[in-house]
């Protein structure tokens, strides 16, 4: 078994004797990337502060290579562990090189004089983080992303075994976010640096970090490889998402439509997703059917729609489901045909729409007119057609 670089046993962390998170057992191996996920105020920063020696453990142990982190003297700790924090003053009149060179402080002499070796290490870190070109720019002129890379370069030149990063992707655009994670992966793979970080981007964490630690309600609610600990619903629960649902499969969040009997969307094969979202955004209540459990629409509808009639994967739509869907549709003010492709197992949906038209409900459709005529024949004349989703919304608006 590999030796842990950072190891905590029954660690309780908090401020002024008040425990924020209790019973943390972490084994971070050499070169491992461990990511803390959890809602604001869950105590991620408190854990990171304790691991970086800024805060003493309330009880239990936090060790770096078997030594209590809090007991290691600051000087030698600074050669083994470095930090990247969320905020902090931006020093005036300081170039990127100056900023990064601050990280050599644990190694330089009394007056902080840089040796040729120090300079080499600094230049290497600038190259590694891709900011060699910014070497002589002032830190105050950098974008958030560039600044963050400079701060990471500063942490690298401390040549630590462990880098602790508190929300290193906060304020960054998606391009920089990916870059920062890639950089950490590289440090872990090539330099065997252990990275312990907190993130707010679930998606990034699951795809970029080997180990995830879920922090919530004063405890660690799960720890391990993403595929082991993340199930459907994990994040909706972890972040107490109300009025929405996080889809672990899609890596995205859906916002619940208002609770109102407005629209029934007959959908399938992902044709419903944009319609659900658009209706919800425009303030309409949305229900859907009959959608197969293995359909992309199913995953989105689970988040947006207040009700959904579904069918088992790869099974033809059963009579029962069709009847339930029809009942549901008749309770709504109008019905939408998303223009889903029609095949053997979902042909029942066409029948469903026909019945609804016959019962006098207004039906809107995104299906091409000639195809619609083919399916609905005579009844097509009672359907309101729209070419795009926004046109559809406009037409709905003018009537409902």
């Amino acid at each position, binding site marked *: 078994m590999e030796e842990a670089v950072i190891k905590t046993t029954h660690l309780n962390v908090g401020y002024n004797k008040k425990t924020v998170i209790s019973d943390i057992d972490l084994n971070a191996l050499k070169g491992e990337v461990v990511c803390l996920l959890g809602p604001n105020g869950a105590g991620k920063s408190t854990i990171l502060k304790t691991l970086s020696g800024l805060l003493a453990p309330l009880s239990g142990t936090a060790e770096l290579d078997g030594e209590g982190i809090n007991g290691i003297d600051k000087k030698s700790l*600074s050669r083994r562990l470095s930090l990247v924090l969320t905020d902090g003053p931006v020093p005036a*009149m*300081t170039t990127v090189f100056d900023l990064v060179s*601050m990280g050599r402080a644990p190694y330089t002499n009394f007056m902080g004089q840089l040796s040729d070796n120090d300079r080499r290490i600094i230049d290497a870190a600038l190259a590694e983080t891709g900011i060699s070109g910014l070497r002589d720019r002032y830190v105050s002129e950098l974008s958030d992303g560039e600044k963050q890379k400079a701060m990471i370069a500063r942490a690298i030149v401390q040549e630590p075994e462990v880098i602790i990063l508190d929300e290193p992707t906060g304020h960054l655009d998606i391009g920089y976010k990916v870059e920062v994670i890639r950089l950490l992966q590289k440090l872990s793979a090539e330099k065997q640096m252990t990275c312990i970080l907190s993130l707010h981007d679930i998606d990034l964490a699951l795809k970029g970090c080997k180990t995830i630690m879920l922090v919530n309600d004063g405890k660690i609610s799960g720890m391990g490889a993403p595929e082991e600990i993340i199930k459907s619903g994990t994040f909706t629960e972890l972040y107490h998402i109300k009025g929405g649902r996080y889809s672990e499969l899609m890596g995205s969040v859906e916002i619940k439509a208002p609770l109102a009997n407005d629209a029934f969307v007959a959908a399938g094969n992902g044709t419903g997703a944009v319609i659900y979202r658009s209706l919800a955004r425009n303030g309409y209540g949305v229900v859907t059917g009959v959608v197969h459990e293995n359909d992309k629409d199913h995953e989105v509808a689970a988040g947006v729609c207040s009700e959904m009639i579904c069918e088992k994967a790869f099974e033809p739509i059963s009579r029962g489901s069709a009847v339930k869907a029809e009942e549901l549709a008749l309770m709504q003010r109008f019905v939408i045909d998303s223009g889903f492709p029609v095949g053997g197992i979902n042909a029942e949906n066409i029948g469903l729409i026909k019945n609804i038209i016959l019962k006098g409900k207004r039906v809107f459709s995104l299906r091409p007119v000639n195809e619609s005529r083919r399916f609905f024949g005579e009844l097509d004349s009672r359907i309101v057609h729209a070419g795009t989703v926004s046109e559809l919304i406009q037409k709905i608006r003018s009537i409902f």
Partner: protein
Amino acid sequence: MLSRKTNTRYTVLFAAGGALLIMTFILSVMLGSVEISAAEIYGCFFTPDNVRSAHYSIIMDIRLPRTLAAIAGGAALAVSGVLLQNFFGNPIVEPYILGISSGSNLFLGIVILGGYTFGMKNISSMGMFIGSFIGAMAVMLAVIFVSQKVRSVTSLLIIGLMIGYVCSAVTSVLTVIADKERIMGFARTTMGSFAGFTWEQLKILCPVTAAFLAAAFLMSKDLNSMLLGEKYAQSMGVSVRAFRFCIVVVSSVLTAVVTAFAGAVSFIGLAVPHIVRIIFRTSDHRIVIPAAIIFGAVMAGLCDMGARLIMPPTELPLGAMTTIIGAPTAVYLLVSKNGER
């Protein structure tokens, strides 16, 4: 430091600053109600017998001590400003704004007036310095205490101003209830002035200033680490608590030693560090501290000269001169983004 080009720039700027300082020094001794030639100054040191005795005593008893005091005092205040700005992570603080000078002045008043009350004829320069130091430390600690409760820059400024006002108010009450004649010299120092400096006072001012300026310079490396805030400093191996204590002591001593003999001199501690960072284009304390020493000395020397020479024979308050330069700097800093953390 970085490249040869930067190195050359620093050399040129330091040389220019040095030349400016020497010029200020010579002019400050030469100019005044009695004009004195450079040759006479030279004469004072090497051929005292050839200098007219009236001029000799003007130079040796009045102008030289005053000039030396202005130069040493300016350097001390500027470096004190550098340290405080580092301590609070904020470019807008300095001894005067935080009320440290005023507190120092108040305790000085208490020592002087208390001394007279207890029948002492003269308060020794050392006694004045110690009183002043206690005042500076007391206010400094009070400001630090409050600044831990309120984090915002603006609140800190207001609190400093308030503490300053309170100290000034108490000082003025003391001035009124005390024997007028005896406190003449003291009352004047509330506006700050290098006039009437004696060699005895210089014997304290110069060595103390020199020692603590050197101490400040030796703290450069950790001061640099502190630029990113305490947490980073600690992660780079600085023992933050001990180091902060050092900053407090050194900056308080530097403020106190000036205030003891020259009163509360405003804004030098604010303007000089900022000007130095801009012209040297760095925040590296290994450059900023020596530069603040030179340019602080120059600024105080020039302001002192201005106070004497602009409307002779009336002597303008030194505080007015330094404020005219310092206040716009403060406003600029507040308005520009640099003022916010």
